[in-house]
């Protein structure tokens, strides 16, 4: 004889069924809206059996800015032409630090800066900080989503220090290095900046007032590259200056003898292996008789991989050079973007071993950026590609492999431009000038050339 009677059994089954019926939506909810993710670990911590739970409602705007906790049924990035959503655990938006130029005038300083490039965020506004003490307490003023600002009512002869910081929907994302300028009576007065914004539009540009100073018209560049690396500065696409960075990776360079007008400057570094960085490019209006200072140029790290093809599941080594003892964020592009961290050593070299088990078969790329402890952040450098396949093939990092080097001199400059221009819109061009292999030299080939330009 059993512990309970048959009638009692039936009652329990009925009660259980009733309970199941009542709790079904909850169970269903748990089944569908709660799921486990892979463990997260590092040398310092381990997050075991993480669970992502859907919560929150619908959010939308014209430009889609959303900083909150949300979820979806699988981890990873969802994209569309208008926005991207990174599901799973919270992702932290960052932005590169703007490089700031300061042009003194009489009782004023004109500041222009490069756009902060948001990662997982769109920059919506900037603030300009001013101080009379180097590194001192800065008083910030919101200037909106612009790339230039004129600080007026300043005392001539006093050195001012400025910083620019970027925001995304009110969240502080990055801050520039400080730049100094000393307003002087009669220096560059009456310069008309037409058009406002956009890094100094330049409508009706010209010195309209008295310009009595005898100061050379020039630019002083300063920033960070790699320890003892060669830094090249291009003026309107032609090499105007080369300098060597110090052991701390800091560099400065002065370019004089300029005219008043709009200039395009590009700065790039070459690491200890001869790998060139992505150029840091910006346009600026140079005022006659004034020396403009451009500070906070933070050259992105170089990057290379040890294998051009890696067997799925094997490790690939990602390495390069940046400023010493900086945090390096490495992005590995896949269906899901992976962010890895490394630390550069005293010579700026970083190295990271990445397990390719999580990558699908096919083409991938990786890029890196550097973060300093003072808050300065570089942009991401150029991406380097690799294949996840069925075998391991070592990468030949001795090859410079410039895409636009038509005369194979390991440079991409006016000579290559002239050779490509000869073949412009002509039939059957040689492969060396048809950079995208579409059988014709057209604007696309010149765009590829402008991207890889070395001067």
């Amino acid at each position: 004889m059993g512990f309970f009677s048959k009638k009692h059994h039936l009652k329990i089954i009925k009660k259980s069924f009733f309970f199941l019926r009542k709790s079904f939506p909850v169970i269903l909810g748990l089944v569908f809206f709660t799921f486990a993710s892979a463990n997260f670990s590092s040398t310092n911590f381990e997050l075991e059996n993480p669970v992502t739970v859907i919560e929150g409602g619908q959010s939308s705007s014209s430009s889609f800015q959303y900083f909150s906790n949300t979820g979806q049924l699988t981890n990873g990035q969802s994209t569309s032409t208008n926005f991207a959503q990174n599901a799973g655990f919270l992702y932290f938006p960052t932005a590169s630090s703007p490089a700031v130029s300061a042009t003194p005038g009489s009782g004023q300083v004109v500041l222009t800066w490069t756009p902060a490039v948001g990662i997982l965020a769109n920059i919506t506004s900037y603030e300009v900080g001013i101080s009379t003490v180097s590194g001192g307490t800065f008083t910030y003023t919101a200037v909106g989503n612009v790339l230039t600002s004129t600080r007026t009512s300043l005392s001539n002869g006093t050195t001012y220090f400025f910083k620019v910081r970027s925001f995304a929907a009110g969240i502080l994302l990055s801050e520039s290095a400080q730049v100094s300028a000393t307003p002087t009576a009669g220096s560059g007065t009456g310069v008309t900046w037409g058009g406002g914004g956009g890094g100094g539009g330049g409508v009706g540009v010209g010195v309209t007032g008295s310009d009595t100073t005898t100061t050379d018209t020039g630019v002083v560049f300063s920033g960070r590259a790699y320890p003892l690396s060669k830094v090249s500065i291009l003026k309107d696409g032609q090499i105007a200056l080369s300098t060597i960075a110090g052991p701390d990776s800091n560099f400065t360079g002065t370019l004089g003898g300029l005219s008043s007008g709009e200039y395009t400057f590009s700065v790039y570094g070459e690491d200890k292996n001869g790998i060139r960085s992505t150029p840091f490019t910006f346009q600026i209006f140079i005022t006659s008789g004034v020396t403009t200072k451009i500070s906070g140029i933070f050259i992105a790290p170089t990057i290379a991989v040890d294998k051009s093809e890696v067997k799925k599941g094997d490790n690939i080594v990602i390495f390069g050079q940046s400023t010493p003892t900086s945090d390096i964020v490495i992005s590995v592009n896949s269906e899901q973007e992976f962010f890895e961290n490394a630390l550069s050593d005293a010579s700026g070299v970083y190295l990271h071993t990445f397990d390719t088990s999580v990558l699908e078969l096919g083409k991938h790329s990786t890029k890196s950026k550097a973060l300093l402890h003072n808050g300065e952040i570089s942009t991401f450098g150029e991406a380097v590609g690799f294949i996840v396949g069925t075998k391991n093939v070592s990468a030949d990092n001795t090859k410079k492999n410039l895409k636009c080097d038509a005369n194979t001199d390991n440079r991409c400059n006016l000579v290559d431009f002239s050779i490509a221009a000869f073949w412009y819109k002509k039939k059957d061009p040689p492969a060396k000038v048809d950079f995208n292999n579409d059988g014709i030299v057209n604007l696309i080939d010149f765009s590829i050339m402008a991207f890889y330009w070395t001067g």
Partner: protein
Amino acid sequence: MNTIIKISLASLVFLTFFMPAVSFAADIFFETTKDTFDQHEPFLVRVLLDTKNVPINAIEGTVIFPSSFLELEEIREGDSSINFWIERPESKEDGEIHFSGITAGGITGEKRLIFSALFRTKGTGTSSFSFRSVALLKNDGLGTKITTKEIPLDFSISKNMSDIDVKDFAVTDTVPPEEFSPFIAEDPALFEGKHFLVFSAKDKGVGIDHYEVRESFFGIGGRYLRAESPYLIRDQSLKKNIYVKAVDREGNAKIVKIKTQNKLALLEQWFILGIILCVCIFVVKKIRSKFFR
């Protein structure tokens, strides 16, 4: 009938919710100081670019202007954001200015100047400037084309006669072109593999007018000849110094010297020195015979 309504409604709902919004990544537009002009009035039109924070490194297109209403006086590209022109802005067809060029590393900004053109009105009425086939390519190493909004500019010409002269728009420029670096190169595709010279200078004032090249031994002799890049070097032995002169539209010039690439052989050096010595002796003799007869 019901089915048609259902399909229409479903399509409407689909289009409303799922069709991606069309967004223009960059604007190309004109700028003038005003939009109504008198007859025979000169005015400057600036062709500008708003990149919407997207770096653009290559551009081509055509500006269309009404030649029945406007006379093109001059095209200015001295202060352009374009580093190197593939096709310098030029009016080869009536009522059209075609251009294409690149900027290394890309242009970013709200009002980046491509070029400006000086016009003079003729006739009366209303017309407009417009663009045709503008292509803007992203600085991404792939030449990705960016959706571009081509913004036309309407203007009208009144019956009043203008007393403004074209000279009022003249730019005073006494500054020579910028320093530049010519290169000597060779390529099987160009000039049958012979040595050629490439050069490009910028002038922030009125712009470059032309280039001249001179080849000479020790800077003696040789004369400047008008030249365009790429230029076929006459002295293929590369034993002569080469001088490249960039001249702006106001006549200011910057001369850059490229030192001889290959040194003269000892015999050649003695030969040239001998000729110079002979010339000197000849001149001295002539002077002596004239003054100490």
